[in-house]
């Protein structure tokens, strides 16, 4: 590939991204366009495949941030991502590549379930939660720093309560990103949780065992809705990680009685 081909590839990718952006962002995009040009120059020695590697996708998102795009995240970013993903896929297909850009974090932004969960946990702090999560996920900002900023933006709550709620919401959104493939594939989930003296009795019952989505939905941690995403409740360290059935050694299949025990222990 010569230099001109490489530039054309990037221009095509940039055009695909730009075409997916709503008209409300025109002002932001003129700035974005300038930044993108310098980004393209910085990466002109890479092939398209390399360009799309993880580090560079992240650096492209930093360009979004510098252009002021995050101000629009809660209002327009969902639609942007939706349209841009389709166009980027088409651009990649033109180059003989197939990509699953909707994996994990990016697509979660437009998942209504994540937004609803954030709202149900943190109420008026939902916007702060989403912004904190986007910043920590895409921009490499410390989750602690992002959470602190979110806490400061929430009024009418004590700092401790706001922090706990926002941390729970951020963790839930993270869990949704992790569980997403399993939900789509109809897979089961292994409960990853340590076994130590501060482990809740309810979490100890299900730690290291595999459950179906139906079984997890029958679990009630007594604190927060949707056990798949909130696990043992506030500040839980566990998460459900997708796994294929049938369960094979050394992992262990959970039983219906565990679900009952989980609910009993959670209510104590």
């Amino acid at each position, binding site marked *: 590939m010569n230099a001109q081909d490489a530039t054309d590839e990037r221009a095509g990718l940039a055009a695909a991204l730009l075409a997916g952006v709503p008209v409300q962002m025109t002002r932001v995009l003129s700035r974005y366009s300038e930044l993108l040009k310098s980004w393209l120059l910085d990466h002109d020695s890479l092939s398209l495949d390399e360009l799309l590697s993880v580090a560079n996708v992240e650096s492209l998102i930093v360009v979004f941030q510098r252009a002021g795009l995050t101000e629009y995240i809660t209002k327009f970013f969902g639609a942007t991502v939706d349209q841009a993903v389709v166009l980027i896929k088409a651009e990649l297909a033109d180059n003989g590549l197939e990509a*699953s850009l909707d994996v994990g974090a990016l697509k979660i932004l437009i998942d209504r379930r994540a937004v609803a969960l954030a709202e149900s946990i943190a109420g008026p702090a939902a916007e702060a939660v989403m912004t904190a999560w986007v910043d920590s996920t895409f921009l490499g900002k410390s989750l602690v720093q992002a959470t602190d900023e979110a806490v400061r933006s929430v009024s009418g709550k004590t700092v401790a309560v706001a922090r706990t709620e926002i941390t729970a919401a951020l963790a839930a959104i993270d869990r949704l990103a992790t569980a997403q493939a399993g939900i789509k594939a109809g897979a089961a989930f*292994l409960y990853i949780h*340590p076994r130590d003296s501060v482990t809740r009795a309810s979490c100890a019952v299900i730690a290291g065992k595999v459950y179906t989505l139906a079984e997890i939905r029958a679990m009630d941690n007594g604190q927060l809705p949707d056990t798949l995403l909130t696990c043992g409740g506030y500040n839980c360290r566990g998460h459900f990680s997708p*796994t294929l059935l049938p369960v094979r050694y050394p992992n262990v299949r959970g039983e219906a009685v565990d679900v009952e025990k989980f609910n009993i222990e959670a209510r104590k």
Partner: protein
Amino acid sequence: MIITITGKTVNMSFKDLVSLEDIRMLAEHGVTLMKARITLRSLKADGTPLKPYSTKPISIPSRGVGTGSPLVRPTGVKKKKKSVFFPGGYLQFRASAGRSTTKDLILSGNLMRRLRVKIIVGNAVYVGWMGSKHELIAQQLDTQENQLLFAWSDEEIDDVADRAVDMIMRGLGEPEP
């Protein structure tokens, strides 16, 4: 498909035989096997135990430590003290905070929870963490374990390969072996 984590790759030749979503699920299944080995069994990819937590004396900041919220604070913090000294090292700090002294890589739970498939391009699957902070921590932990922590054991590779064969057979309408 090629799975990459902390710079290490595993190559499996399934291209065109399973769908993109199947590739993603296979990779997530592999990640779950890896997490279970580390957190539940405290083992490296070669089957040997993870190195024990450090006993080198250490000062832990009073505000706490961890890879995300909530930070885990040391017990016995005195007013105006910026840190708490643990002569028995990180191991002693973990014990005082009620955490397992057998290495499970879970303090706040953020590092393991955020490990997942990041992106799939062609048949290349990138596994890891969104944001450079966790990637950096993972690489440091991996180095401590001779690159055998966030790596794939033979059993894990075999399991993922077997599941892929199951998927292919199902796709062909054949009974699974």
